[in-house]
């Protein structure tokens, strides 16, 4: 019932839904306005020939990144409820016999549910757009891989945002942090600007930011098929170079991340962050009884 409450509170608050999607709207806006064209030209230069598929491939890569961003920002909106509750509602919960653990879990699961609903919706819209514009319809294996990516991406994004909520005390602080994260996330996950065009140090930041792997996994499933068709005539190094520049895969020295490696990164990060969060919660001694 508490989980249902948290989900309802998110979707009933239209402003909250809008603002948690703001980063997504910015990505779409930027892409439509100028990024799309620019990236298309980059790709055509890389290929060395003109292809009418170049536009949709670049759009799929951007949209794949957008889906990954959704999984973080929607959790941010949903977990904002737990921060808002710290002001008044928490008193009501704490004078009730419900266990404290249950309250915490209801925030995490409620937010995960919100994240999953939003991410899968974004994913469906994205696939519809791509197939309507000449992209291919994902088969069964790809659909399964997309859903798995959505789940892992939401779990990981959710854990990171949850960790933030354990650190902030007021709603003002949380909205400030949300604004910063919402603005930076597109860069941190290498979506606004191709990873390969950034300075080396920044590239490493992106490579080490776990959520970039969620974006990478979405890109692999959504765009890899079209990419290999496009690059069929080009030497294999060209395709590899392109995938690296656009954050479809990440290289660490000689090692190149694949789908399952990225999946493990997301799962491991989720686990580590929850352990960290509970440590922070325990370390925080408050006057309130638990």
């Amino acid at each position, binding site marked *: 019932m*508490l989980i249902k409450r948290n989900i309802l509170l998110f979707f009933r608050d239209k402003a909250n839904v809008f603002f948690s999607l703001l980063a997504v709207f910015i990505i779409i806006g930027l892409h439509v306005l100028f990024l799309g064209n620019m990236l298309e030209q980059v790709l055509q230069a890389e290929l060395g020939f003109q292809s009418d598929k170049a536009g949709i491939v670049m759009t799929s890569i951007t949209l794949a990144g957008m889906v990954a961003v959704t999984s973080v920002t929607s959790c941010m909106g949903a977990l904002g409820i737990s921060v808002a509750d710290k002001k008044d509602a928490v008193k009501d919960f704490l004078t009730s016999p419900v266990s404290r653990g249950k309250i915490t879990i209801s925030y995490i699961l409620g937010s995960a549910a919100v994240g999953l609903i939003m991410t899968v919706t974004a994913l469906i819209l994205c696939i519809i757009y791509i197939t309507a514009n000449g992209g291919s319809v994902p088969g069964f294996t790809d659909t399964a891989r997309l859903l798995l990516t959505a789940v892992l991406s939401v779990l990981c994004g959710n854990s990171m945002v949850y960790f933030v909520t354990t650190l902030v005390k007021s709603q003002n602080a949380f909205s400030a942090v949300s604004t910063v994260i919402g603005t930076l996330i597109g860069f941190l996950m290498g979506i606004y600007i191709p990873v390969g065009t950034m300075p080396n140090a920044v590239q490493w930041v992106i490579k080490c930011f776990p959520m970039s792997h969620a974006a990478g996994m979405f890109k692999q499933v959504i765009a890899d098929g079209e990419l290999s068709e496009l690059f069929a005539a080009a030497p294999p190094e060209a395709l590899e170079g392109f995938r690296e520049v656009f954050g479809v895969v990440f290289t660490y020295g000689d090692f190149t991340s694949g789908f399952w490696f990225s999946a493990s990164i997301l799962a491991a990060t989720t686990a580590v962050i929850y352990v960290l969060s509970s440590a922070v919660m325990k370390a925080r001694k408050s006057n309130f*009884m638990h």
Partner: protein
Amino acid sequence: MIIQVDNLSKAYGNVKAVKGISFAVREGSLFSFLGTNGAGKSTTINILTTLLAKTSGKAAVGGFDVVKDAQKVRNLIGVVFQDNVLDPILTVRENLTVRGSLYGLSGVKLKNAVENAVKIAGVSEFATRPYGKLSGGQRRRTDIARALVHTPRLLFLDEPTTGLDPKTRRDMWLMIRDLQKNSGMTVFLTTHYMEEAAESDDIVVIHKGEVKAHGTPLELKMEYCSDLLKMTLDNGDYIERKLEKTTDALSIIDGYRNRIANVEIINGTLDDVFLNLTEGLEHVD
């Protein structure tokens, strides 16, 4: 005794908010807890409602220690907070359902509990409207419905009528009285309005973290304030006397029998008791 407090203290760092207070509340009574802002009222309520850890002393609700048996205490109590703790974008009924589930209620049981609370608190007219869109009085009623959803034995009301208009305040008050009389529920109330406290069975006045007085409204009036006799004589002279007992006025009036233009006896009120106990003490300090 549904509440038993013995030598209870709470300190925030060096600041002692509550300094070893003791009092008890009878089961089924209407109990008023009076004090100025900062007297330690909220701290005491927060300890009794298991929100706040105490520094020392003992506090038990329904025979259960508020620290060791906090969960059992939580099952017994309903709390109406000063602030709005319900969700503004959920309807009254949704709010009650969510909060009712915190007591382990579900399915038909939860539904019945919600409908029962809706009926008792008289919120059925606006039960399908969002809490945030209600008027102050409707919101308060909903808060009370929420506190009653699990039929508690003890209801805490922290300044329930503050900020309400006089009519709503009276209605609210009648409802609380009815509840306490009809259901035998104990009501623990803090208020700024003395006329409300005047109707309670017992009053405790707390000031600067200490209990300054404990008794029925009548006992407090007898002890801490006096009646006042005011007379104007036919030659324009004005006489004012404090009275030990109201009947003392008779002999004084009798002495001026033929010269009186106007006589007035003013009863001491709980306001006087409160001011005497709090302001008076401040001067002594």
